[in-house]
């Protein structure tokens, strides 16, 4: 099955939840569509949602909650059907 890497376009801190009291945008194994968010990157006090960029199943997160990411770094893998 083709694997699609979800990439952060900006450097910053990666969050899996929209805010600390909410559930994650996407759990492992969740179905996502092109524009469903899989995470949030905080840079310079502004927050940017990272869309899946493909439809399929989230098979793996490559970074943890609150990990620092670089621009262009893959953060998750989506298996496209």
């Amino acid at each position, binding site marked *: 099955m083709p694997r699609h890497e979800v990439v952060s376009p*900006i*450097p*910053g*801190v990666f969050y899996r939840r929209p805010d600390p009291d909410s559930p994650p945008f996407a759990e492992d194994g969740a179905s996502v569509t092109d524009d469903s968010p899989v995470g949030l990157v905080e*840079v*310079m*006090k*502004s927050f*940017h949602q990272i869309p899946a960029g493909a439809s399929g199943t989230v098979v793996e997160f490559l970074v943890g909650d609150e990990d620092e990411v670089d621009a262009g770094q893959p953060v998750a893998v989506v298996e496209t059907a």
Partner: protein
Amino acid sequence: MRRLLVANRGEIAVRIIRAARDLGISTVAVASKADADALHTRLADTSVEIGPSPASKSYLVADALLAAAKETGADAIHPGYGFLSERAAFADAVAGAGLTFVGPAGSVIERMGDKVAAREVARAAGVPTVPGTPGGVSGVDAAVEAARETGYPVMLKAAAGGGGRGIRVVHDEDGLRSAFGQASTEAQKAFGDGTMYLERFVERARHVEVQVLGDGTDAVHLFERECSLQRRRQKVVEEAVSPGISQQVRDAMTTAAVQLCREVGYTSAGTVEFLVDDDSGAFFFIEMNTRIQVEHPTTELVTGIDLVAEQLRIAAGSRLRFTQEQIERRGHAIEYRVCAEDPARDFLPQPGPVGRVTLPSGPWVRCDTWLEPDGTVPPYYDSLMAKVVVWGADREEALARSRRALDEFSVSGIATTAGLLRELTDEPWVASADFHTSTLEQWLTSRKETS
């Protein structure tokens, strides 16, 4: 006060260190890992690394700051703006450690930081607040009743909402009756609380704020600043004094701000924020900021008073050095916030290395910054790179000088908002000061559509 620890970073840390050095006070900088080689650490007499790069692990850790003060023998702490500057608990902890907090007492920070308490202070001082219900209304009939007092248009706000969420604007009783139920249900779903309250909605609102100084006994104002040019509730351009109010409004507003300070026995520099109805000239108290503000240099340029130095003098126990009559204003000053953001890509933040840096200077141009050639814009903090502040004998001269100064500003390696700010200075509605708090966003939207 012999040794001051500056509990901040960036341009304001640089600014405070300079004021302290002007007064012959020794300075201690603090730095996160990302700021280990930042300008403020090199301008201070000594510097202490206080933790990892994220602010939550460094600049926001009160214990780390107090430990740094103890280690370096500092006897005072200046919080700057943002970070811990308006946390009453921090002011109390500083005082509890036997040090001087450069700002008002924790109890005053707490009182003025609480929206309901601050409105009560304003009312006691005879300062007008935005007409509205003090708390929630029990239902649609009560809302209609309250709106008769408030006057239309009225804002329907979710008591549990915040940051602009859960707000509806209605223009008459029919609109209120039809919107109330749905708004309350939505609030119940979104915030778990369907309580709604009402506030008068001002269609064309200006944001005008009065700079004050108090010594605990007496208080004076240093005129006002116009801060209506905002994007996403963030100020972009500020000027002193406001080009949008009459002398009559100025007199009433500055008098009200001083009354408010006397009411709480205010100490240090502070800002009393007002919303001005551009159609009627009526003004209403919104909130008080109990700290130095980003846009303070505009006031300094028109009054010739160093606000940070006055904060330090007052914190060291001095009485106010000026009577109201001795504070005069001269000319006009405008500040532009140059940010590391790309206006062409919806203001995407631009962290990363920079190369050549050319900062504007010359006659009546001041540039407050932390930026240096071959430096780096760290991804951890806000995007403010530099404040370009210009003075002119009048507003027209200040605007002309703004064009020159912003043309001089250049940074290679990343996109900045300098070009956009330069574009603004040519807009006829800027020249005529015909704007309110939504105007800049409207302009940005129409600019995007035409490009």
